[in-house]
């Protein structure tokens, strides 16, 4: 992703990084600081909440398994209290269990823990610019949930009824390894609009009310993580 001219300067982007594994925390923080971002680090949910009380970051990067709780709770809280904060989940495998779970509570992106420093910085930059990353396997997971099935497939529950046919087409393209440009030309749209569609897909997959049965099921599923 080539940085465009109108993007926000890196030093103006505040990041709250929540990761309990010290080497990983150090590695990610190093990569982000070197890229010029303003990074605050936390190792527990309590520390993160304290940090949020002091300063609202532009980007929240959080692990899911934490010593004093689950990252999903923090993502939900942040999403409700600070809607302008972009939330990204740090995943070990980039698997649908962790990523989809985070998306349904309000995350709009994911970062692999072993990503190269340059990729870490560019992913955060893209997210701030409104470009949510999505992998082929995540896209595949979502589109397979749009297909009618007799019994609910394993994995986190996902309500895909609000997705439009066009959005599903885009997801199919990503799942099959097509680039945004190829998808755009296939579907007769501008390449620039594809990332916006992906963010919209993430937003539609978000579960809004706490009382929803889907949400409860989701929580139960997450406790097993």
């Amino acid at each position, binding site marked *: 992703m080539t940085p465009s001219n109108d993007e926000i300067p890196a030093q103006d982007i505040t990041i709250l990084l929540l990761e309990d*594994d010290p*080497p*990983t925390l*150090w*590695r990610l923080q190093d990569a982000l600081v070197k890229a010029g971002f303003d990074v605050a680090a936390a190792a527990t949910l309590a520390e993160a909440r304290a940090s949020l009380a002091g300063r609202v970051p532009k980007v929240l990067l959080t692990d899911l*398994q934490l010593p004093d709780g689950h990252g999903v709770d923090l993502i939900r809280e942040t999403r409700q209290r600070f809607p302008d904060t972009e939330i990204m989940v740090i995943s*070990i*495998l*980039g*698997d649908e*269990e*962790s990523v989809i779970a985070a998306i349904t509570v309000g995350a709009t992106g994911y970062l*692999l*823990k*072993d*990503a*190269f420093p*340059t*990729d870490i910085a560019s992913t955060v930059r893209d997210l701030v610019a409104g470009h949510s990353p999505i*992998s*082929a*396997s995540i*896209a*595949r*997971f979502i589109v*397979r949930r749009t297909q009618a099935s*007799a*019994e609910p*497939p*394993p*994995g986190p529950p996902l309500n895909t009824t609000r997705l439009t046919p066009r959005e599903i087409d885009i997801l199919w393209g*990503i*799942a*099959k*390894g*097509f*680039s945004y440009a*190829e998808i755009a030309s296939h579907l007769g749209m501008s390449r620039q609009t594809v990332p916006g569609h992906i963010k919209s897909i993430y937003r539609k997959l978000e579960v809004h009310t706490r009382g929803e049965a889907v949400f409860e099921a989701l929580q139960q599923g997450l406790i*097993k*993580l």
Partner: protein
Amino acid sequence: MTEVLAKPASTGGQAVRSRKQASRVFQYILLQALIVIVCIFALRQPLPEPPSRYLVTAFTLEDRGTIRPVTLPDFVPTRLSMDDPALYRGGFTYDSTAARDEQRAWSIYLPRFTNGVEIFVNGVEILDSRRDPTANRPDRATPEIALIPASLLRDGANDLAIRLYIWGPVSGFLDRLYVGPDEALRHYYEQRTLLFVTLPMVFAAWQGILAVILIVLWVVRRNEPAYGALAVAMALGAIQAFLPSAMDQPAYPELNATLLASGPLESAFVLAFAILFFGRKWPRYGALIFLPGVLLALVGVFGDVAAIRQFFLIFGLPDVGLNLVLVALIVAWSELRRQDAPSLLLGCAVTIVLTCFAHDILSVLQILPDRRLFFIRLSYSAMLVAIGAGLTWRFAQALNRVDGFAAHLAVQLREAEEKLKLSFAREEERARAAALSRERTRLMRDLHDGLGGQLVSIVALSERGEAGSGVGDAARAALKDLRLVIDSMDDIGGDLMLALGSWRDRATAQLRPHGIALDWRVLSPQGLPVHPELRPWHVIQIVRILDEAMTNAVKHAEARRISVSIETLHDGASPGCGCITVEDDGKGFALAPGGAAAETRHGARGLRNMRSRAARCGAALELVSSGGGTSVRLTLPRRFPDSDAIAG
């Protein structure tokens, strides 16, 4: 617009249909007219008679006190008393010399009379027909023959006296009679007996059999009352033909008379059968058709023989005619509507019966100048034949339908079995996929919590240490492989493109730090064909071949650009083979004559691995390497093997 266009067409169709209908009516009427003409022609054919030299026609009739000369055939008015016969007196000449030379006995032959005769030769009685039950039935033209005892015969003129008993319902009749040598007359007598006595008995027997068959049919199929009605009709016919002959005549005269007069009831049942069988709705006052028959029976039971005879003549016969006409109309309507064999057969039969019935009525009323021969019973046999044939036709049709139904059932059963098999296979497949998916989820969670986190820590630690970058690379490769294993366990529904999509993500991430561009080209619109038999272990092998090719390009060939082409090759066969090509612009490597890379031990092992993986999936691997780059071309099989037994 369309209405205007459609209307003439539809009226045209209607016109064609009504024209067709009219021509069908015309054809049917023409056929029936032809049958009537043939019947009349047959009825007008004179029966063979003995030579006229034996004919005796000149008699003197003494009847009710009057004496007048008559010439046979002669009619005498009917009367109520049995003790008041008409007496015919005449004579014949016997030539004893001629007769004795040839040793010939003489007989007297009466072709037709109603109702009973006593014959006297020279004052001695030689025949009383009243002792023969069949001869007593006016509806049967029973002939009589009597041998004249030789002792009675006188040379020259002999006296012949005939007492004609008349008991109605028709008037008395005496046809021309013959006296002559027995051998000259017997033959004609036998002919008439065959035609007017034996044949009706045969048909009556046939009617009895039909009655039994129909009763069985009706008992078995109670929902078809048509067979019941016809069974009753047939039973009545058979009973009235046999019973009076078998019973003691004088003991039950009323019952006998009633049975003889059962025609209206029988015809009413035939009509009921026609109504039911040919699918007309049973009319509201349909029971009325039985009224004349029932009345006649009541008259027979409570009245006397004379009354029943009068009643039969006045009500019974017209009723039979009416019923026959109704049957003819119903059958004609059915034939025009359905055009099936039973309708046509019965239609023709009814026409024959009606023609003979008309002939008999005209004969009874003495309108038609003939010899008082009644053909209605004989012609009724045509109807019996038609009914038998129609029933058999129906039976055969039903059998055909049963066969067709059985065949249809068998086909349906086979289809259902196929469907069940398919759905069972689908169900099995789904259960398998679900089990795999559950296992994958479990494995994913395990790896996420354990191995995955540890590997990430190694990557992070190795980067902090700066020196051990080799450890970091190895840990990163292990993570990548972990993701591959988990990813390939996902159910991709046989669409390899989905696996390649994930691989592209990982490959792009892997190449980015090296500054190598990945050129991804999907040359066929659908990419690769879908393989329902594709299993996770196939996917792993294919993705590892691609990984190996890419690793070689990055590590050993120092490539700047790697391109991956995906296409479906069509070589005439309908489902083409998938083909994946990985090309780089690196420096290449030398291939040993055996096809293995000779350069390094590692390279050689890598290439051998790729070949063995391709072989296990049934795919063909082509390696071309030169100074300008390397190309790895993987051609997928049309069908992936079920097991990797062919592993080399």
